[in-house]
């Protein structure tokens, strides 16, 4: 793989912040990944965990103690060596209520979390730094996802002095020990990142620098990409251009198309009539012509029949879901007492192609007698409606659909299908809470012993199949992510659509 090259990436929206304790949108997600390093990471392009800043680690048999040995001599870009205290500081910072970070909840298994989060303690008692190269995590309960948690952005290691020097503006002046360092940030225009020459893995990254230009309309970004001014169009290919590009002779050089850990679904609010009736929910599952929906997005997706995406461990290839069958759907509705159908409201975000998909769903529903009125709103309003009890009967999740934080089935349950998410302001928009399944989910997550991982996956598989029996969702399709890149960019599709970080800046390279 070649070394060198300066590339240009475009985005429409501003980069909100590069503070790893705060940043939580899909744009800054991959940048933060490269600016900082964490104890754990993934092999590029895969969901496979590997130690990163940690040289090695051990887990106690009860699954409650994790001991990490740090790599020696790793330096922050300010020149200081990374020490165990930095790890403790960084994770406490992510949990600290003062940080207002959205990721605190991930660390809930660490001992002392509740006290600290409630402001009753000044730190996390469960993190210990016995010597200059060891960090010990004590958990209050087994957590099978804990290693994943240490690989997410919120667990990035930051130097205390730089955070304090930035005086609240760390998100604009990040200092880390990742593959790149921030060189320049012109507000509203661009961010320039240069490779970190001291990065602890030799030969990584491959490119010398990348510049993120923001405020770029996707259509124009694509045009610039075709002219060679831009190397990666970060927002992908707008629907209006997709067919044209994919049919052009250059298509194979310009388009990378990869599976992501994503499912598009329609939530059926179990607290609103008539969706409190499982038969109605099942009927609607049979009413949607997913093949046609896939056609509307120009084939950039595959029909889905369960919550988990195929690339996620726990996906049940044997499960067939509810087949498209209008007659059966009508019959079920009749059984449920809605022979003449009913009226309801379907929410959707307002950016193309979401309203179109909503309209196609609307037409399918009409075929079984369900009159759905569409409300296409700005994303924040849809999220607000979803999190308000009794507000949104149906929501098409497109545009804000769940993309996993880390490749573990539990991440697809808790907030969006579990009881904890069925609260005011939560993300469980079906308001679905099955106590039995909830218990099984907790149990599955306690199986932290690596040897039991197959068993655990099996447990999750069953949970999701059972969820589908209750049919709180209509899984619609698994959208593939399509990234447009210039011809000179090299690398497999899975580093442009990396399951854990979207674009993997560490792995992409410029062809010689």
């Amino acid at each position: 793989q070649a070394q060198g090259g300066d590339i240009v990436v475009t985005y429409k929206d501003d980069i909100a912040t590069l503070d790893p304790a705060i940043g939580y949108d899909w744009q800054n997600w991959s940048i933060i990944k490269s600016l900082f390093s964490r104890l754990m990471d993934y092999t590029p392009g895969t969901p496979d965990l590997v130690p990163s800043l940690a040289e090695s680690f051990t887990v106690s048999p009860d699954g409650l103690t994790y001991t990490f040995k740090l790599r020696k001599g790793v330096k922050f870009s300010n020149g200081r060596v990374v020490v165990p205290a930095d790890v403790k500081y960084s994770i406490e910072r992510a949990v600290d209520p003062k940080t207002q970070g959205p990721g605190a909840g991930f660390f809930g298994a660490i001992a002392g979390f509740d006290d600290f989060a409630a402001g009753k303690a000044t730190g996390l008692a469960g993190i210990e730094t016995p010597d200059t190269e060891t960090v010990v995590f004590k958990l209050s309960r087994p957590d099978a996802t804990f290693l994943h948690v240490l690989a997410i952005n919120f667990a990035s290691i930051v130097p205390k002095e730089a955070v304090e020097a930035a005086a609240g503006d760390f998100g604009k002046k990040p200092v880390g020990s990742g593959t790149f360092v921030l060189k320049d940030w012109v507000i509203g225009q661009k961010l320039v990142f240069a490779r970190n020459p001291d990065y602890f893995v030799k030969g990584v990254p491959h490119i010398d620098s990348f510049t993120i230009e923001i405020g770029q309309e996707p259509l124009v970004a694509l045009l610039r990409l075709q002219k060679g001014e831009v190397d990666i169009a970060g927002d992908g290919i707008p629907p209006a251009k997709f067919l044209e590009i994919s049919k052009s002779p250059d298509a194979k050089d310009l388009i990378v198309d990869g599976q992501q850990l994503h499912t598009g679904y329609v939530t059926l609010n179990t607290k609103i009539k008539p969706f409190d009736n499982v038969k109605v929910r099942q009927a609607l599952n049979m009413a949607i012509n997913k093949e046609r929906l896939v056609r509307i997005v120009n084939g950039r997706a595959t029909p889905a029949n369960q919550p988990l995406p195929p690339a996620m461990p726990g996906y049940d290839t044997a499960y067939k879901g509810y087949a498209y069958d209008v007659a059966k759907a009508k019959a079920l509705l009749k059984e449920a007492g809605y022979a003449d159908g009913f009226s309801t409201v379907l929410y959707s975000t307002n950016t193309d192609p979401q309203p179109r998909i909503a309209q196609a769903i609307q037409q399918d529903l009409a075929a079984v007698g369900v009159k759905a009125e569409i409300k296409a709103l700005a994303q924040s309003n849809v999220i607000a409606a979803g999190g308000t009890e009794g507000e949104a009967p149906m929501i098409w999740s497109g545009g804000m659909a769940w993309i996993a934080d880390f490749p573990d089935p539990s991440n697809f349950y808790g907030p969006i299908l579990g009881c904890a998410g069925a609260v005011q302001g939560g993300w469980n928009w079906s308001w679905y809470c099955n106590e039995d399944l909830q218990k099984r989910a907790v149990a599955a997550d306690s199986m932290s012993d690596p040897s039991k991982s197959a068993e655990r996956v099996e447990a999750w598989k069953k949970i999701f199949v059972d969820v589908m029996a209750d049919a709180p969702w209509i899984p619609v399709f698994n959208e593939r992510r399509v990234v447009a890149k210039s011809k000179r960019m090299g690398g497999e599709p899975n580093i442009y659509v990396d399951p854990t970080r979207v674009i993997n800046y560490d792995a992409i390279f410029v062809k010689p």
Partner: protein
Amino acid sequence: MVLLLARRLTQAALILLGVAAITFVLLYALPADPAVLLAGRNATPQTVANIRHQLGLDLPLPVQFWNYIVHLLQGDLGRSFNQKTAVAPLILARLPATLTLMAAGIAIEVMIGLTLGVIAAVRRDGAIDRLVMTLSFVGVSTPQFLVALLLLYVFAATLGWFPMSGYGTPAHLVLPAFTLGILGAGWYARIVRSAMIDVLGQDYVRTAHAKGVPAARVVLRHALPNALLPVIAMIGIDIGQFMSGAVVVEAVFGWPGIGQLAWQAIQQVDIPIIMGVTLVSALAIVLGNLLADLIAPFIDPRIRAG
């Protein structure tokens, strides 16, 4: 005059306060809870409550507003919820781009509009007149996005005369400014034509002809100033429109203006940024209108400014 200015400035301050108050109340009316958005998908209710408290969103509205105004008077626009940084630098960084585009856009639309409007009025009911009038409709009936893309395709992508995107050099300014200019020119052309036809029928225009003043000078020096008042008013309006409303043009040409910032902030319910942008553009509008009102008596001395 000084007194008048002082009075108008006080009024301007009151208007700004009014804008701030209304914006504040409206933002409160929004069901979208910034804390929920910030807390993200994985948040516990605890985290949400935490964030809400940190942002002061759990205080009663009047208290929040009072705090806001107190900070404002110290020149502090607050910190962005989403970007976790002070709002003022975010807006200030984008202000030059916005002002440049605004000035250039207005200059172009006024130039095109005045020229076409005057020609149409002078050649009224002729073929040129009809053409100009039809064009003005084409101008206002075409969505900004289309015009911007079309110009981009032709002059940047195909001909390569101008850069496709970016900010900094005059070459970057040309296409976005022309997009705004072409679209706005229709209004000016119409307004100018209408006013000019009225003026050209006045006795004093006949006097100018009788003095042997060259035709062009009669039109430009004698008639045009009498037709300028509505144009000045229109410029005052456009300042407002372009201040935070050039979202589409900014987006297409990657112009780092305030419009994009505002649009994103609204999507994300980033209240401090929305407030900041609103106040800054309100200030621009108020100043623009003030200027228009102050200039009016110089253009038409019959209007008493007092």
